[in-house]
């Protein structure tokens, strides 16, 4: 699974993308986040407040209970502030 980070989510984690093979039990965005929080202090800090986190699956906004497959591109970022 390809995972991308933007804005302060990336700043906390320290890099902008990673490839992961998730364990079998990781089947939703929320489960992925719980798994990622175990990877480093930066991940734990980035995902500390999930109300401040938005997610995209294959470049579409999705809710945190969305199902994932290993071929997906998943992205985590703060609410958008462009324009």
């Amino acid at each position: 699974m390809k995972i991308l980070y933007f804005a302060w989510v990336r700043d906390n984690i320290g890099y902008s993308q990673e490839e992961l093979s998730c364990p079998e039990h990781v089947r939703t965005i929320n489960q992925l986040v719980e798994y990622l929080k175990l990877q480093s202090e930066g991940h734990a800090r980035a995902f500390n407040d999930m109300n401040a986190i938005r997610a995209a699956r294959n470049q579409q906004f999705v809710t945190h209970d969305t199902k994932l497959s290993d071929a997906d591109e998943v992205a985590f970022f703060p609410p958008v502030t462009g324009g």
Partner: protein
Amino acid sequence: MIKISIQQEDFDVSSEINSMNSKTIGAIATFSGIVRDSSESSSLISLTLEHYPGMSEAALKKIANAAKREWSLEAVRIIHRVGRLLPEDTIVFVGCASAHRQAAFDGCRFIMDFLKTDAPFWKSEETQEGSFWISEREKDKKASESWLLKNT
């Protein structure tokens, strides 16, 4: 005609407006978003815009298509700049061309409202006190939500 660009370089508004013109158009409404010199806390040195390549183009295209369909617009142009910008630089340009003015105005406003909430761009401000990511504005969420209410 819908044209979307995400670019670091500046651009010329006159040429963009001319490119939307045709003999059946009576009205062109535009919006330019500009970097101000004051941040949320203090005075601003620069603004840096980051985006999610691929998704940002797709999101802007989706918003432009929705506006074009809703108001029968003849042309929609969106330019969103990324990278480091200075006060008075243009961040975003939206242009809508239509036979009549109300459609052009509505389309332009609709696109800006949804661009603020549905397109993956993020701003960070460089000030004397350091660099900060800008946080979501409650007002912007309400502005795009108000359109949904009207259409239900």
